[in-house]
């Protein structure tokens, strides 16, 4: 990785650093705490610009459901501040420390730049759905604001969504305002052993198509023996006020009864198990193995899984009703080709989420774009970063 680290402690200094890099035509690798360096492609840059010293919550109004923080604020600090007021991050972004072997926690800016969402995405939306406002430094060193600090805002082009998930290639996020929500009073889950993944997805679809509002719908191909769940297991979570949780779990259990023998998991078990789903640790990826995230329509999940099991010794975890397939396997181009083929066949997309550098440098870590869109993408990149100094090549080679 890059030798020199710039870690300014003000937005103004970030702007100066980027302007200087643009003037010199010297690319910068952009990061927060650098926990996701093994995600996507390696950046060839002599210097790294980190937002890790832009720290702190700048505005928190629990009764207005908004929180603003500087981009380098560690996620646990934000989660703790929210918990004090009985609130939480809606999209439940995963703590990826274990997957990436990182010691430092992820920063808010990093999670937003990667648009990382956890199990609750299926019910309440992704990170990108809750980014209400951003401040960022564009590739010319200008500070740009988009959105704001209110829940509803359609004033001008939505650069919040453009910047979210752009992995630092269009701007350096310096401050972010999020919508937050009250954390549920209670939680619990229903677990159902299923004979195969297709039945599992049907069970999840029954729950997701019911009025009972599951906020998690995962499929554990190997179960979770530590929790007494043997064999392929479908898992539906309810989060709500206590009487609603009891009622809705009961109704889900009745709904799933024709498919087997559903079991109720209490709040403590449910929380522990969903943490493992959220962090994808149930995937059991070995060090040195690659990890992919494939997003397809939920009913395509089982076919993606079958194709990958046929191609290599794939270990799998399905979330989002079956539509998010976490895959662990050998870090080879052949395995990557199998993943991309399966994602395409399933009508979806892939992200090479973790891999040793040679593989990440050699393959398309994200799907390509059709030519008209690729041309627009190049012009949008130039509109924000005319000298191409921000994280060049992070998402796609030569872009």
């Amino acid at each position, binding site marked *: 990785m890059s030798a020199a680290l710039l870690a300014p402690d003000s937005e103004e200094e970030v702007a*100066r650093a980027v*302007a200087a890099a643009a003037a010199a035509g010297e690319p910068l690798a952009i990061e927060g705490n650098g926990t996701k360096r093994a995600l996507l492609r390696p950046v060839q840059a002599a210097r790294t610009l980190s937002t890790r010293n832009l720290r702190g919550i700048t505005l928190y*109004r*629990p*009764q*207005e459901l*908004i929180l603003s923080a500087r981009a380098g604020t560690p996620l646990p600090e934000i989660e703790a501040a929210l918990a004090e007021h009985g609130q939480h991050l809606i999209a439940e972004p995963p703590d990826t420390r274990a997957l990436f072997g990182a010691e430092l926690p992820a920063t808010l800016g990093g999670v937003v730049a990667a648009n990382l969402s956890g199990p609750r*995405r299926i019910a309440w*939306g992704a990170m990108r*759905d809750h980014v209400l406002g951003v401040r960022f430094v*564009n590739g*010319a060193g*200008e500070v740009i604001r988009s959105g*704001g*600090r*209110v*829940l*509803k*805002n*359609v*004033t*001008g*082009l*939505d*650069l919040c*969504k*453009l910047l*979210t*998930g*752009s992995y630092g290639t*269009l701007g350096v996020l310096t401050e972010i305002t999020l919508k937050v*929500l*009250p954390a549920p*009073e209670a939680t619990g889950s229903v677990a159902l052993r299923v004979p195969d993944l297709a039945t599992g997805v049907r069970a999840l679809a029954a729950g*997701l*198509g019911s*009025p009972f509002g599951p906020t998690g719908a995962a499929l554990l191909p190997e179960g979770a023996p530590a929790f007494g769940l043997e064999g392929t297991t479908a898992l539906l979570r309810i989060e709500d*006020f206590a*009487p*609603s949780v009891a009622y809705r779990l009961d109704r889900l259990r009745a709904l799933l009864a024709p498919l087997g023998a559903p079991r109720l998991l209490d709040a403590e078990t449910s929380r522990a198990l969903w943490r493992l789903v959220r962090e994808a640790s149930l995937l059991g990826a070995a060090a040195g193995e690659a990890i992919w995230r494939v*997003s*397809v*329509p*939920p*009913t395509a999940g089982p076919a993606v899984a079958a194709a990958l099991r046929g191609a290599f010794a794939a270990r799998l975890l399905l979330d989002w009703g079956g*539509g*998010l397939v976490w895959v662990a396997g050998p870090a080879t181009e052949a395995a990557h080709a199998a993943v991309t083929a399966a994602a395409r066949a399933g*009508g*979806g*997309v892939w992200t090479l989420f973790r891999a040793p550098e040679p593989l990440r440098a050699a393959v398309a870590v*994200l*799907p390509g*774009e*059709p030519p008209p869109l690729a041309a*627009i993408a190049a*012009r949008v990149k130039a*509109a*924000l970063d*005319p*000298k191409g100094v921000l994280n060049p090549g992070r998402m796609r080679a030569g872009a």
Partner: protein
Amino acid sequence: MIALPPPKPEILARRDAIVAALRAIVPGEGVISAPLELKPYETDGLTAYRQPPLAVVLPTSTEQVAAVMRYCHANGIRVVPRGAGTSLSGGALPLADAVVIGLMRMNRILEVDYDNRLAVVEAGVTNLGITAAVAERGFFYAPDPSSQLACMIGGNVMMNSGGAHCLKYGVTANNLLGVKFVTVEGEVVEIGGRHLDAAGYDWLGLITGSEGQLGIVTEVTVRILPSPEGARAMLAAFRSIEVAGAAVAAIIGSGIIPVALEFMDRPCIHACEAFAHAGYPLDAEAMLIIEVEGSEAEQDMLLGRIREICGRFDPISLRVAQTAEESAAIWKGRKGAFGAVGRISPDYLCMDGTIPTSELPRVLGRIAEMSRAYGLQVANVFHAGDGNLHPLILFDANDPESTRKAEAFGADILRLCVEVGGCLTGEHGVGVEKRDLMGVQFLPHELAQQRRIKGAFDPDWLLNPSKVFPLEGEGAAPALTARAA
């Protein structure tokens, strides 16, 4: 009045040739050019502005839209996309030298996929038409703008429409999976799909709410949701705006997110009551309509908790609906609010700023002062949970002075919204109406940044010109150069 750019004389001069070329692409009744037939297209929901277009073309397929775009692009002709024409910000206002591409004939529901909880529909399907198509299986499409009977999903995508229930379900952007997108060059691109989240830039998020500045959406893949078991409303009336605002904060602070939380002030309560006879308390300064969802028992639990919270704020009246009929009666006045105001005034302007909810008492106090200063009445309805304010300014469009004052009053309200930390528009869009106020919310270099992104999609600025961006910035923004370090 807001200025429109001068028409290009060379385009006006070629009108007959352009119409003939469009007829070759969309045969039959699909091209409108007779002055009388253009009349219905000369305005949208912002009726103060009228301008007949050069021609209207009504394609029936994405291929036809693409061919029209290719032709217009090759010939330097401006294009104004249009759905049902319900925009309250003038988003579909034509220009004299522009071709209106109306999507109302593209009104087929192409597919409903219950297993993946999505529907694929053409852009001209109405918002309510989607729900109607999936209701028998117990599903619905969540965003519910007031115009949902008429407005079309393509327009909803372009304006990122909201509605009364978006506190829980989000706005259009939160309920989409993909679109079929026609670029200004007439290329057809699939954006998103049937899966969640982009791998790469979030084009879907950027296009949603782009007000026709980036391209034309011809097909939309929406998420559909299972309907709740039931829903019921309650009404709570208070002695002051401050107290009602405090009650809203206390409800949210208790951890309850009602599916809707609507606020009406005294003039609005009176107008609605006179119109709908919904039994609203006429001695109240502010009234809330609060709706919750779930089983009967869950509704009872939530309404009980909310009733208890409101009880702490010395309410004038609390009315909890016991049945769906009683609930409908509570909603009746609110749903007819715009019509009710229309009965007491020849015309009204509906504003759409958003404010931090804690600023509500201050903002409504200032609006009342402005109302006295301008000598124009105002009635306020407000999505209280998310801070989206809808002041209705009453005026007489036949009186130029009244019109001028109403527009100035509206602009002052929007400046106030920005001043207290809010924004110019929560769900109606900038359109032509708020275009010249963009400089209140954004700095010049921020607007230039947005214009450069618009230019990346539409280098010749042919798409829906004279909207969103102040006219002096029309056309390519200056190239971005590194600022002095």
